[in-house]
């Protein structure tokens, strides 16, 4: 009896242990905004950072932590022109309509179409109840609530050429700056709202045509005798009502226009046309030559003039900062001081002085012209130097965190004032955008430690992903353990601390990982560390205690204790065991390689590749082995098709992702990469050691590049790779699409003499070509992953690892054609034409199935089709005879089975899930236009589905329905939209039922999904309480039996 019970218990435990915990990696979305085009600071009541970005969107960021409060993404067809935000409202102008947005919540209060036929020039400025739109011949005051035109003033297009718009919000006046076309002299239009007259007027009608009382327009031009030309954009000093502009051609002087005097003259003038004489101040140091002058910024006490000189491949720019004061007696400007900044943008560094930190760039900024700050941000190779000029003092601060090698050059700087902690103190902050698109909030005026300088940083590079690799963290940790401890870099810790100090404790896991295990090592490293680092570490370990103790005591034991506990607390053992956490190696267009940890939801390392010198970009990334990756780039924006005639050189780089270092980076000037593929090498299982006994990890895969000269290159270039390629070259088939001729070419490798195996490398030769009609645009080539499927035909399913599928689009005929080609023979296995179809369309090929979607122009819905490839074994005698040894000549005939369905949503991109052994049901991930990622089980896409319910039940299939299911529970990103998805990638985990999915575009999303909850995973219906009750009942029964065994009746009955 006991045996029976133990057996029952064992069975239950076995069942329980077989099932894993349902906890997985949490769904995570890394939201992005992209490259900033323009920004408005102090937006809304919370002083948010309003940004308009290159990705056709507007967003509001929290100034305290850089988080996105809201964002509006516009479709590619609706082009965002300009936007603006103030404390009261924000207005967004697209080429179709104007949107009035509540700045705090992002709610669209009002939207209306506009009828601007040509928007050659348009500016928006928001007032309290209206905003001003300036077109090339009209100035419109529009109401915020309705969008109706309140006032409209026209000016002659022939006479006046619009140059700039200045707005004085305090007096609701607008100054339009332009050039008189006839006289070629600057001309200004000054508009002041007629407030008194407006009161008496009845309320405005809804019709746009009826325009209220026009604002008074004063037209004034500078003294014609003066012959001053307007070459640069003027600025307005609001508090002082001074328009400041520069004349560079004749006088090299700065001109000042006092608006108050203009208004007073305009009021007395009858024809509203005032001719005034400007006050002109000659500027020193501005020499004549091939140069361009511009006032780039100004404050109430300073203005900055930039002089750019162009030469042969050399751009020199100098900046002059002038301090001035308005004289009370003469009403003139007095120049107080000037300082010169140099900026060499040339490729050839010219050494100056001591040769240290010679190359530097500068950036001046001041968003609010009524403020008392002009800031200069200088960037050297290793640091930022921020200098702030105010009327009272000059503040200078150096920040050595921003290395140009890591971040690239500065793109933009904005100055922002906001309350950080105290209500009284308003601090100046600097919003700095770098070449790698990272955005940082920096402060220099805070009287605390230097680590507090950087308030937050946003890695916008993730919005510019070109390609990514999914690397299992499990395998990576093997190498990390051996190498990381030896390279304990205090500088790295310091850097990571600076970012992480204000973040949540969870994100600190990686930091603790880096701390060595042995106490002696910790002691050694902490002795080397500066007090600053020690204090920071200690503050993280125990912030409450740290705040009490002003002095510093580093307790090594405590650190070890915390480290142990930390791991116990946060280390997700299941995730490690089942490989749910991955390392995403990401390449971006601007030359950065990032390691993104999914467990930490952040970039953990980055490497900047030297491609900016040739204005190059990265194109493709390949995995060589668990340690090394290979990257291909090109110069002059040439794509990998090699069709760009400007393309000159190819860039390659090998990176060690464990030690985070570049092994090799090189430019090849002689050839251009046409196509690159990764080939798996035959694994001999031996990883040799070097002289020092260290393990050498051999390449598992090599990268084969075919160049424009018909030659090929193998990377990494080692003898082992060449030897290994010699064994597999005859299996390699290289498919290249030539877009110029619209031809598909297949290359294979042959040797002149088969007997000479050495010193006779194989040569690529064209095996077959497929010429397409010019109208047919090949939009996608899907190559079957040969490593996944066997070259066998099971259950009449046709598997062919050397098969590609193409998707072509004919715009004129509105057709989408799917072609299935055997790469070895060049035979077209299948050709399916779909009418009334248009893009977006994606094709996915897995096992013996092809799934594709397109937009049905007639049905106005997404059409999803599945093609199943069946081997028609009886049609081929050879196949029956040679089942074991299949040759390409006697491959069986293929029968295609197709079925189509409607999916009631707009699908942009599609991806397919991967599992470890390809046993589990496949899942299709569809990126919808609404920002949802929809997971559709492969079981819905089966051509065997029939309308007859009984037959379907017999076959174990679902009956055919026209529409595929569209339920919210299948949306894997829940209610967090993932915008502008470019691609969806997948990788397997250690559990067959679970797949890892990454979708990237404007946002980055990743998650582990289970398509059908079977095999090794408890399904969602599993009842844990039932299991517990069963266990309890059995235990009680066991105890009862123990007591009952003494009973005689039971004994006799059993015996």
């Amino acid at each position, binding site marked *: *009896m006991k045996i029976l019970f133990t057996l029952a218990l064992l069975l239950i435990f076995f069942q329980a242990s077989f099932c894993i915990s349902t906890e997985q990696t949490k769904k995570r979305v890394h939201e992005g905004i992209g490259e900033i085009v323009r920004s408005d600071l102090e937006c809304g009541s919370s002083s948010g950072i309003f940004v308009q970005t290159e990705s056709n969107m507007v967003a509001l960021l929290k100034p305290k932590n850089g988080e996105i409060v809201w964002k509006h993404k*516009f479709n590619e067809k609706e082009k965002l022109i300009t936007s603006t935000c103030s404390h009261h409202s924000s207005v967004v102008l697209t080429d179709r309509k104007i949107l009035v947005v509540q700045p705090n919540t992002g709610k669209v209060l009002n939207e209306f*179409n506009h009828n601007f036929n040509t928007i050659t020039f348009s500016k928006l400025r928001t007032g309290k109840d209206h905003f001003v739109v300036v077109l090339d011949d009209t100035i419109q005051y529009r109401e915020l609530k309705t969008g109706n035109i309140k006032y409209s003033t026209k000016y002659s297009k022939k006479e006046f050429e619009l140059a700039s718009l200045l707005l004085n919000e305090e007096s609701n006046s607008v100054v339009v700056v332009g050039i008189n076309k006839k006289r070629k002299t600057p001309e200004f239009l000054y508009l002041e709202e007629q407030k008194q007259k407006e009161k008496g007027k009845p309320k405005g009608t809804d019709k746009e045509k009826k325009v209220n009382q026009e604002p008074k327009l004063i037209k004034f031009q500078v003294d014609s005798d003066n012959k001053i030309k307007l070459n640069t954009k003027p600025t307005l000093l609001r508090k002082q009502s001074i328009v400041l502009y520069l004349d560079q051609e004749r006088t090299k002087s700065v001109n000042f226009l006092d608006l108050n005097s203009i208004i007073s003259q305009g009021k007395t003038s009858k024809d509203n046309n005032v001719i005034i004489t400007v006050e002109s101040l000659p500027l020193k140091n501005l020499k004549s030559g091939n140069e361009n002058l511009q006032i780039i910024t100004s404050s109430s006490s300073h203005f900055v003039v930039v002089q750019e000189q162009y030469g042969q491949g050399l751009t020199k720019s100098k900046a002059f900062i002038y301090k001035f004061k308005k004289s009370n007696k003469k009403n003139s400007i007095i120049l107080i001081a000037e300082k010169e900044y140099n900026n060499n943008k040339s490729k050839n560094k010219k050494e100056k002085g001591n040769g240290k930190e010679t190359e530097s760039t500068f950036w001046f900024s001041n968003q609010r012209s009524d403020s008392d700050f002009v800031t200069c941000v200088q960037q050297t190779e290793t640091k930022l130097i921020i200098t702030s000029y105010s009327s009272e003092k000059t503040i200078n601060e150096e920040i050595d965190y921003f290395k140009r090698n890591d971040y690239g050059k500065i793109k933009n700087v904005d100055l922002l004032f906001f309350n950080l902690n105290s209500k009284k103190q308003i601090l100046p902050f600097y919003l700095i955008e770098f070449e790698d698109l990272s955005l940082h909030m920096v402060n220099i005026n805070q009287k605390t430690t230097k680590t507090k300088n950087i308030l937050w940083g946003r890695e916008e590079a993730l919005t510019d992903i070109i390609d990514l690799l999914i690397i299992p963290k499990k395998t990576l940790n093997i190498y990390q353990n051996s190498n990381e401890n030896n390279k304990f870099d205090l500088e790295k810790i310091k850097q990571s601390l600076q970012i992480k100090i204000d973040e949540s404790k969870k994100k600190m896991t990686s930091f603790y990982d880096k701390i060595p295990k042995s106490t002696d090592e910790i002691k050694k490293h902490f002795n080397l560390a500066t007090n600053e680092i020690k204090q920071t570490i200690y503050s993280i370990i125990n912030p409450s205690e740290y705040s009490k103790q002003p002095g510093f005591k580093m307790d090594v034991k405590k650190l070890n204790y915390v480290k142990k506990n930390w791991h116990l607390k946060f280390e997700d053992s299941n995730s490690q065991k089942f490989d749910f956490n991955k390392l995403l190696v990401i390449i971006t267009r601007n030359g950065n390689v990032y390691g993104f940890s999914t467990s930490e939801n952040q970039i953990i390392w980055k490497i900047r590749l030297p491609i900016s010198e040739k204005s190059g970009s990265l194109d493709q990334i390949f995995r060589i082995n668990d340690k090394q990756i290979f990257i291909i780039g090109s110069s002059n924006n040439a794509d990998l098709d090699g069709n760009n005639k400007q393309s000159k050189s190819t860039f390659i780089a090998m990176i060690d992702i464990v030690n985070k270092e570049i092994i090799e980076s090189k430019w090849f000037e002689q050839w251009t990469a046409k196509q690159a593929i990764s080939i798996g090498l035959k694994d001999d299982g031996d990883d040799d050691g070097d002289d020092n006994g260290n393990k050498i990890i051999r390449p598992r895969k090599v990268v084969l590049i075919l160049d424009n000269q018909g030659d090929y290159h193998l990377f990494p270039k080692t003898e082992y790779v060449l030897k290994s390629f010699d064994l597999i070259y005859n299996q390699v088939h290289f498919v290249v699409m030539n877009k110029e001729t619209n031809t598909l070419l297949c290359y294979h490798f042959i040797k002149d003499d088969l007997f000479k195996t050495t010193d006779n490398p194989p040569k690529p030769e064209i095996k077959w070509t497929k010429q397409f009609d010019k109208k047919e645009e090949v939009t996608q080539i899907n190559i079957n992953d040969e490593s996944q499927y066997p070259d066998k035909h099971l259950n009449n399913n046709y598997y062919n690892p050397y098969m590609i599928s193409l998707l072509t689009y004919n715009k004129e005929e509105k057709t989408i054609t799917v072609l299935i080609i055997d790469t070895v023979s060049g035979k077209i296995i299948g050709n399916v034409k779909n009418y009334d179809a248009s893009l977006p369309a994606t094709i996915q090929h897995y096992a013996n199935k092809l799934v594709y979607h397109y937009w049905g122009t007639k049905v106005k819905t997404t059409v999803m089709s599945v093609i199943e490839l069946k081997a028609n074994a009886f049609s081929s005698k050879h196949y029956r005879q040679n089942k074991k040894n299949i040759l390409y000549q006697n491959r069986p005939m293929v029968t295609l089975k197709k079925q189509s369905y409607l999916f009631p949503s707009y699908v942009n991109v599609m991806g397919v899930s991967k599992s470890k052994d390809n046993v589990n049901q496949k899942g299709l991930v569809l990126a919808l236009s609404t920002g949802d990622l929809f997971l559709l089980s492969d079981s819905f896409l089966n051509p065997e589905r029939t309308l007859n319910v009984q037959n379907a039940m017999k076959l174990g299939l679902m009956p055919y329905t*026209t529409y595929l299911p569209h339920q919210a529970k299948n949306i894997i990103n829940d209610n967090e939209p993932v915008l502008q998805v470019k691609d969806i990638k997948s990788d397997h985990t250690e559990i067959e039922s679970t797949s890892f999915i990454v979708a990237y575009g404007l946002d980055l999303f990743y998650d582990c999904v289970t398509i059908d909850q079977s095999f090794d995973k408890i399904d969602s219906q599993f*009842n844990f309480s039932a299991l517990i009750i069963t266990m309890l009942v059995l235990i009680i029964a066991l105890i009862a039996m123990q007591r009952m065994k003494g009973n005689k009746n039971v004994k*006799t009955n059993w015996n």
Partner: protein
Amino acid sequence: MKVFYPTTLVIVLILSSLFSLTSTATTTKTKVCDVEGKVYIPGIRRPEQVKILLNGGEHTAYTLRNGEFKFSSIESGVYFLEVDSKNYAFSPLKIDVCTKGQTIRAKTADETFKTVRHPLKLTPYSPKVYYEKGQPLNPLKIFKSPMGIMIAVSLFSMFILPKLSGSIDPEELKQMQQENGGGGLLGKLLGGVANPQQSNSGR
């Protein structure tokens, strides 16, 4: 005197008619219509702001405070309308925008094929449920599950089976043991004998 050829007249007439046809074709403007509607969410006076998409974002509109939305100057044709709501699921619509006259006709673009009148009244068919709810404890389900059957079998073998064997006539029991040969698991259970040889020797 000039001779008038009727054929030339015909050609001229044909050409002129063709010209007039082409000119009308070029001058005719494409029809434009406004598509209006309102989003209603039962029980909520001020519904959340949602984005309305035409043809996957070719045109977009946001609902205002009262739930109303408007697409201005939409060219005639058939469009696919989607409601981008995070909390409610709406049926997509297929809208025929003034292809026949100035009328706008709409039908749901899913299996329901419901006709929706213009201005469009959009109501969700269900709230969006992203997560599956865990099932509450049900004693009946426990007994239906394999674990429940295991409990039942084990309890049966513990308490009821000995009683059943006790009520059997000893001779019948021996006969049963003989028939089973003591080899099967059931025989062992019924006989309670571990070694079949022992049972043979006892005979």
